[in-house]
């Protein structure tokens, strides 16, 4: 379990004069078992990070991995994973076209500029129209952030 990149608020304040706390990492894994996908985009439980930004020139690099399963055979649809910041989806998707029983980790990176204040980062997923069942699995699904909080 990754812990050292997460600086407690009091420590963050104490270190605010030191550049060493400005580049940090955060991670959130999916929780609660597999989530069955529907055609309605849904937040993935656990794959959510909230943090406060202080600097005027802050940014985040986000690394999203979606552990997708689709079945049964002869179902045809796109599984889509997206990255949301403060209630809005960012451009760009991680995707897998399902044409038979299949399971893969689909991944993508995103970059986002951040203004001072509280921010929420989430992974969402949905499927296109089609028969059969699609799931995003807990094992390989996670959101990782590299955050630069620069004044």
């Amino acid at each position, binding site marked *: 379990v990754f812990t*050292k990149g997460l600086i407690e608020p009091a420590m963050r304040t104490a270190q605010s004069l030191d550049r060493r706390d400005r580049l940090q990492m955060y991670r959130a*894994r999916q929780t609660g078992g597999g989530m069955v996908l529907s055609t309605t985009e849904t937040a993935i439980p656990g794959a959510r990070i909230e943090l406060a930004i202080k600097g005027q*020139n802050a940014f985040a690099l986000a690394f999203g991995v979606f552990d997708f399963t689709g079945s049964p055979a002869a179902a045809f649809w796109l599984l889509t994973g997206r990255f949301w910041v403060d209630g809005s989806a960012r451009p760009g998707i991680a995707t897998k076209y399902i044409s038979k029983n299949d399971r893969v*980790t689909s991944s993508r990176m995103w970059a986002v500029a951040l203004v001072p204040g509280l921010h929420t980062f989430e992974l969402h997923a949905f499927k296109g129209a089609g028969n059969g069942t699609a799931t995003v699995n807990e094992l*390989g699904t996670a959101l990782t952030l590299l955050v630069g909080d620069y004044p």
Partner: protein
Amino acid sequence: VSGYLAPFLVDGDPVSAEALFEFFQAVAGQDAPSRIKVATAAASAPLTVTTAVQSVTGATVNVTVTGQNAFGLVLAVFDLTNTLATASFRGLVYIDGAEQDTPAVKWGDGAADRATYSQFFPVNLPAGAHTINLRAVKDLNTGTFTVNATNTTLTLLVVDLP
């Protein structure tokens, strides 16, 4: 994108490895030259995956950190071919001999296929020497999974904080 990333990225564009490298080079030059390092390794031979965990030859990074609060970002990419396999593949990252908790996965579905599968995650790095490497395993002895050397890589960004 504004601020430090602006010279390297266009808002909405996917982040390329080249842009990341240029960015971290710039950060290292402007901020703390000794604190941010990037180490990379590529597979040097194909690996035929079995039901026993095996290392991917060449995909090993050795780093030494001095800080008490160092951490790293692991970027693992497996270039995988499966031929008529009905087993599950797991691409693993090991740090100092310990398996990390989120693998790259592929379920062979009985059809030939090839793709790159990735996984990214942060790690704590206590002061000292560390070895990070890619390994692979499958759960059933059916079909063939091959980790190709061509595009299988391990990248480690190290932030060595005192």
